[in-house]
């Protein structure tokens, strides 16, 4: 019969470790509390003396400023909270696209460091060293100068097929929505379902018979093929709204502003250098013995990478990679320096107009804190799940 431990009995003498610990903690909490109270009371007093209004009521009032670019309509008559919302969507838009681009580029660069080709190795190394040793703000400013000043005016825009690049930004064709597209979308959905079903089936036959089947290329082909079939069934609609060179600007089509391009490109290129290092360290961390063990078991180099080395490298890569994603998101706040209307830029404009420094800065901090804490929450969950079980 195992017994349960007795309830902890503490000796509360002056020399007991328990009491001392409690006293230290009380002192610490009191000191922090007093500090916060002092700052808060100073702030209250100062605001009263200087006649600064406080409160978040201003969020409901009309903003009175325009925003250069937004995902949906905004005019100066709309309230501040909508302006902040647009800032938030602009931040997230830059962050998401930046994360995708920097991951692609960073992975290529990181893997490139292991190339058998010395030229590729050297190039990847040079990229990383050059890019990460120059401040990201400076890089953003440089890209902005490039996009907004070095590039030719719309009249002499650089043309790459249907794309136009000029001081006005990048213009590109966008497909015009037609009823036939619905067929294409349904085709893609059906393709996805079929591809998934095939994957499951081939996995099962592999487990049952040991007969390996393609788990990637065939499902991909199924997905694309069925999608294209659906699109063809819908009459293969292919009308584009293409940009046209006007006299003063590029008209029609979709476009990206120079601010957006500078921010996305600058952040992606900067972060890619760090991601390259993360990937490199991850691949290096898998001890050589693991590859040797896989080879000794008769796995092919591809199988050894897919089944043994990559899963272990990913475990090392993913935590610092998430950190880089968070860094990119936080660095997107630098877009304020080149006038891209993300959340910090909206906050500073609001701050200058309303004078509510505490509120505006709090909103910014809250936005970033929420993002960071949610991400680290998921990261911790993932790490617990992925951790190698040890005794």
């Amino acid at each position: 019969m195992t017994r349960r431990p007795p309830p902890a009995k503490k000796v509360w003498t002056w020399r007991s470790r328990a009491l001392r610990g409690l006293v230290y903690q009380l002192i610490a909490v009191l000191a922090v509390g007093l500090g916060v109270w002092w700052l808060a009371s100073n702030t209250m007093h100062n605001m009263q003396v200087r006649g600064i209004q406080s409160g978040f009521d201003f969020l409901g009032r009309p903003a009175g400023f325009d925003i250069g670019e937004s995902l949906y309509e905004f005019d100066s008559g709309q309230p501040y909270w909508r302006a902040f919302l647009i800032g938030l969507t602009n931040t997230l838009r830059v962050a998401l696209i930046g994360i995708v681009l920097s991951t692609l580029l960073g992975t290529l660069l990181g893997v490139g460091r292991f190339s058998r080709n010395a030229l590729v190795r050297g190039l990847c190394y040079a990229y990383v060293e050059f890019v990460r040793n120059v401040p990201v703000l400076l890089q953003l400013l440089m890209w902005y100068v490039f996009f907004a000043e070095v590039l030719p005016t719309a009249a002499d825009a650089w043309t790459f097929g249907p794309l136009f690049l000029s001081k006005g930004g990048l213009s590109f064709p966008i497909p015009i929505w037609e009823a036939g597209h619905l067929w294409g979308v349904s085709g893609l959905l059906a393709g996805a379902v079929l591809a998934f079903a095939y994957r499951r089936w081939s996995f099962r036959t592999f487990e049952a018979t040991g007969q390996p089947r393609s788990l990637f290329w065939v499902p991909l082909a199924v997905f694309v093929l069925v999608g294209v079939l659906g699109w063809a069934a819908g009459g293969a609609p292919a009308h584009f709204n293409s940009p046209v060179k006007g006299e003063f600007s590029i008209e029609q089509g979709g476009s990206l502003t120079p601010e957006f391009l500078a921010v996305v490109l600058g952040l992606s290129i900067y972060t890619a250098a760090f991601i390259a290092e993360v990937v490199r360290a991850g691949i290096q961390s898998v001890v050589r013995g693991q590859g040797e063990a896989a080879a000794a078991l008769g796995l092919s180099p591809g199988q050894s990478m897919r089944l043994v080395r990559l899963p272990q490298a990913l475990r090392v890569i993913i935590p610092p990679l998430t950190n880089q994603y968070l860094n990119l998101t936080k660095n997107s706040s630098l877009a304020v320096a080149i006038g891209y209307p993300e959340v910090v830029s909206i906050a500073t404009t609001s701050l200058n107009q309303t004078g509510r420094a505490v509120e505006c800065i709090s909103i910014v901090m809250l936005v970033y804190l929420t993002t960071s804490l949610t991400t680290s929450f998921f990261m911790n969950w993932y790490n617990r799940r992925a951790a190698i079980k040890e005794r």
Partner: protein
Amino acid sequence: MPEPILRFDKVNMWFGNDFHVLRDIDFEVAHGERIVICGPSGSGKSTLLRCINRLEEHQQGRLFVDGVELTDDVKVIDDVRKKVGMVFQQFNLFPHLTVLENLTLSPMWVGKLPKKEAEARALAQLERVRIAEQAGKYPLQLSGGQQQRVAIARALCLTPKIMLFDEPTSALDPEMIKEVLDVMVELARQGMTMLCVTHEMGFAKAVADQVIFMDEGQIVEQNNPAEFFNHPQSERGKDFLSKILGH
């Protein structure tokens, strides 16, 4: 009968809520006695040792070291630690300090000895473990056996009344075990009170006054070595001995 230097009185300890590591531990050690504790891994023998200088806290029962009951009292803990020297399986020498600095650290900062005296004492102890010529080196420059002897000397610099050994030879290459055991045997001859967790049965036979056999947190058997090795009383003891002496 004189006061025993160490007395366990129905000591119980748990890790967390479910793991009952020490169950009703009850024994005494007299001055100058040499005790060898053995048992399968996970039987609680290291934990028992670590309770003696409060590296682990027992939750129930009483534990007296040199007549003083071990409690949460800071002063008591400090005093007990000065009386108890400990040697670890992994040596736990401080790699950033030289051998000599490892030895003088406690005498200087805890015992408040002047540097000269602390160094004289350290050199004397190094002499005792026959390694004085290595005083200026860093621990990682020494072999495992030498490191463990330094660790013993470091514990001796406290001028302890009891020495605890927690599997002192388990991390050593076979050819180094003897040099450490020789030092321990010599220490035993000089009359040091020793508690030693070890699987070195030769050592147990040679120096131990008593062998304590533990399993599942309990003391299963306590006997003199000749009796224990030749006629173990319990099934578990027989089983254990057959496993470690089987080859």
